[in-house]
């Protein structure tokens, strides 16, 4: 019988000098919680994580941006509603919608901020059961052409942590139909819908495919022993995807 280590050894960092040259910014707002985790996921993927502060007026020449999870401004008023006015958000919106097509990933609170900033359609309301829910969540990959999903196979099922209170994705029927017709639903929940999200939508992408937002947390599934069931590393694909994009492999 093989003796599998229970947690696994240290994370193998890819030895590829091209990767380390990729600079991926991680934005911190007051109340951001998963910024260190997102930076760790970037490092695990071999790229260089760059700390960005919401009040900064420059993107510090980063090649991509992650807006991590948390409760920026305490989710007061409405999740993401205050953060989207941060000086850096203006820069991110400009860069994401310009010809440069800056890859932007919004995770959880980051997704909420992206919808508030109108980079992605729809909105998140309180979970239908009204409780905070933390669990390991199976997602089905429904789009594998975006900057953040191209390393996955279409239809692949991945398990990453889900943890939020305002995770119910809503949009009007027309928007939902359009998202589906244009292949912009990036991930759907598999099994029981954890929060009442319309059409089981867990994450979406913009039309250009450079901006992706989702409620579950891929950055918490990148190291053996610290993710779902203490084994999962299914979230690594997000970070290898963006490196594929940046290095022109896809």
């Amino acid at each position: 019988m093989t003796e599998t280590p229970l947690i696994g050894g240290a994370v193998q960092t890819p030895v590829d000098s091209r990767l380390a040259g990729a600079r991926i910014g991680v934005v911190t707002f007051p109340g951001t919680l998963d910024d260190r985790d997102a930076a760790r996921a970037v490092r695990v993927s071999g790229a260089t994580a760059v700390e960005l502060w919401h009040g900064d007026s420059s993107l510090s020449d980063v090649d991509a941006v992650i807006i991590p999870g948390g409760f920026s401004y305490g989710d007061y008023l409405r999740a993401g509603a205050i953060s989207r006015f941060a000086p850096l958000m203006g820069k991110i919106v400009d860069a994401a919608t310009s010809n440069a097509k800056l890859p932007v990933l919004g995770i959880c609170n980051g997704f909420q901020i992206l919808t508030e900033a109108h980079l992605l359609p729809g909105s998140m309301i309180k979970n239908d059961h009204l409780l905070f829910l933390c669990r390991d969540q199976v997602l089905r990959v429904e789009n594998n052409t975006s900057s953040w999903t191209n390393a996955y196979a279409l239809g692949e099922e991945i398990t990453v942590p889900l943890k939020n209170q305002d995770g119910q994705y809503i949009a009007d029927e027309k928007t939902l139909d359009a998202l589906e017709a244009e292949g912009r639903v990036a991930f759907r929940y598999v099994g029981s819908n954890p929060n009442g999200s319309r059409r089981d939508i867990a994450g979406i992408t913009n039309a250009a495919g450079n901006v992706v937002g989702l409620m579950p947390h891929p950055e918490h599934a990148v190291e053996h022993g610290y993710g779902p069931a203490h084994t999962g590393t299914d979230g690594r694909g997000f970070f290898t995807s963006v490196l594929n994009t940046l290095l022109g492999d896809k």
Partner: protein
Amino acid sequence: MSETSLPAGPATGALKKFNIDTVENAEATPDVELPWAELGLKQNEFDDVVKVLGRRPTGAELAMYSVMWSEHCSYKSSKNHLRQFGEKVTPEMKKDMLVGIGENAGVTNLGDGWAVTFKIESHNSPSFVEPYQGAATGIGGIVRDIISMGARPVAVMDPLRFGAIDHPDTARVMHGAVAGIGGYGNSLGLPNIGGEMVFDPIYQGNPLVNALAVGVMRHEDIRLANASGLGNKVVLFGARTGGDGIGGASVLASESFDSTKPSKRPAVQVGDPFAEKVLIECCLELFKGSLVEGIQDLGAAGISCATSELASNGDGGMEVELTSVLLRDPSLTPGEILMSESQERMMAVVSPENVAAFESVMDKWAVEYSWLGEVTDTGRLIIKWEGEVIVDVDPRTVAHDGPVYDRPYARPEWQDALQADHFTGSVQDAARPATSEELKAAVLELIASPNMCSKDWITNQYDRYVGGNTAQAFPDDAGVIRVDEETGLGVALATDANGRYTYLDPYHGAQLALSEAYRNVATTGAIPMAVSDCLNFGSPENPDVMWQLAESIRGLSDACQVLGIPVTGGNVSLYNQTGSIPIHPSPVVAVLGKFDDVARRTPSGWKEDGQAIYLLGTTAAEMDGSEWANMRGHLGGLPPAVDLSRERELGEILINASRDGMIDSAHDLSEGGLAAALVESSLRFNTGARVALGEVSARDGVDTFTILFAETQGRAIVAVPRSEEVRFNDMCTARRFPLSRIGVVDAAGAALDIQGLFTAELDELREAHEGTLPKYFG
């Protein structure tokens, strides 16, 4: 409290917002009636204040003494007993202790320049009055204690004890407290990695909401709460001061609940987790830049506590101007400002050259601050209101030299009769399960019972992932957090208590709590290093309760000595009772252990087909105080025997086996006995097992029911890879530790098969185990 209850000084004109009771006025008007009784002081205590000051206190001074001399802040009833935790510490136990009892939290050396600080506290009374805010601010308060030591908080845990699961008020308290812990803790970015959930009618009118926080730091970052250095500036920062929680410590924590008294709701604090999160990051940036000389969080007794403790611990005095405090409610009186327990505030001492750098950190995080005064060399704590002195005291008399009581205590008259009332042979034991069908039904009933059922419904409301360092969380025996990403250095934490055991025998009950927490930590493979305790008891003015407290402290301190791990901090919560009925004595014990590499940690369930399952330890017919007896409505007799050297041996075996890769899963046996452990280990990774109990039953001379349900201590079940069996057997045999191979992991079976008795499908077990909490609260 209304502001009119504090004495008014001479009206000095319409310009003044209040009639301020200055020191000068107090000297001039010695005979003014003061509301000391309403503020919770006893006659003798008030007389002491007058003696210490040589005059009557001003209204502001009275406010300070009343909160700081309250049971909650002064430990006046428990101090004489708590000394044992210090007196029984051997040099060996001290070797890794960097900061001991007395500071905001103890600090333990982890090696490689790392240190860890942890502490457990109660927030019981507020959580009954207003469950959401009470529980939320309980987390907030303990987290600020951890920050005050210079550490980054990395995880929280919360042991909870509520009333009967089916009582209508339990849902109110349960929903509120769980939502409060989640709402606050989740927003701070601290993973919640464990705790306890116990239902018992004894906690109906007095639930226990305890909170533990753990933080890590480099040795050089350790900070202490003292104000030193003449001319250094005193600054208050964080949230503004409001009217919440005024007198909370003195009024709530020292009074038992009685339905005839008016609602205490105004004395509960309101939390703002966003403000706390920003405060954490802001403080860590201050520490990183070495911008503060001393720091203290504001918790119970607010500014009274922070100023007097900082000044008392320092080498000089302190002078502050109270009108500089930023207020949320401008109508607050000086006494109220001193007593306010508004959350998310910190006080720091900053040298003049660091003032500008300090301010720029505040500005970056948009945290409000105000400079209140400075450190002096007078040895006095002077507080002014618009320049007039309203407090002039020796800070030691406020913070440290409060009253100490030698409360009378005696073994209760009823204790002997209680201990003579054994479960075996009692009326409640009339229909003990014996047939296969009865035993299967009993196992299903046990794992669905309120105390043994799955706690997923609660723990799924807590973020266990944030931070990315959680190597293990509930339902494993202990939470495990990685400290150093490069080396894998980490810590394990478990909290345990059994109020029924402690009620039956306070001395041994407290030791059993420690034994279980120690065992839980060792089960994961971590080496136990330090203890923090939250002593929840009834009124110390009741000699029965005082005896329970004294015995528990004696038991706990003796056991710490045998196990070789020191108590580094904790908290005492008294007056936990409804009317004249005290709660079961509930010393909640937290044990912290260390891993050189958390990659070696052992989970509580098996998953590899074919691995051998061993039962370590022997089983005796110990049913008194057990979950089974509890389910049958019996509480009497003697708790399971304590054997600390056996616990130590078991711990060493589990730790060595984990380190050397001899076991892939380990689960301690405690409440619910072997039956609960077998089910939990099977459900952990949804992997079945085939088990035979005939051999251990014959060896130990007990029947199958007893093997399954007795709560004998010093036991664990482990799963051993085939290739390691010889080595594992040899290790246990060499140590003369009893072990028996009771089964094998059977992944294909999808069932727990107790051979010759019954087979229970995992789905059937899961449905029973996970259905209970949603049924009552979902």
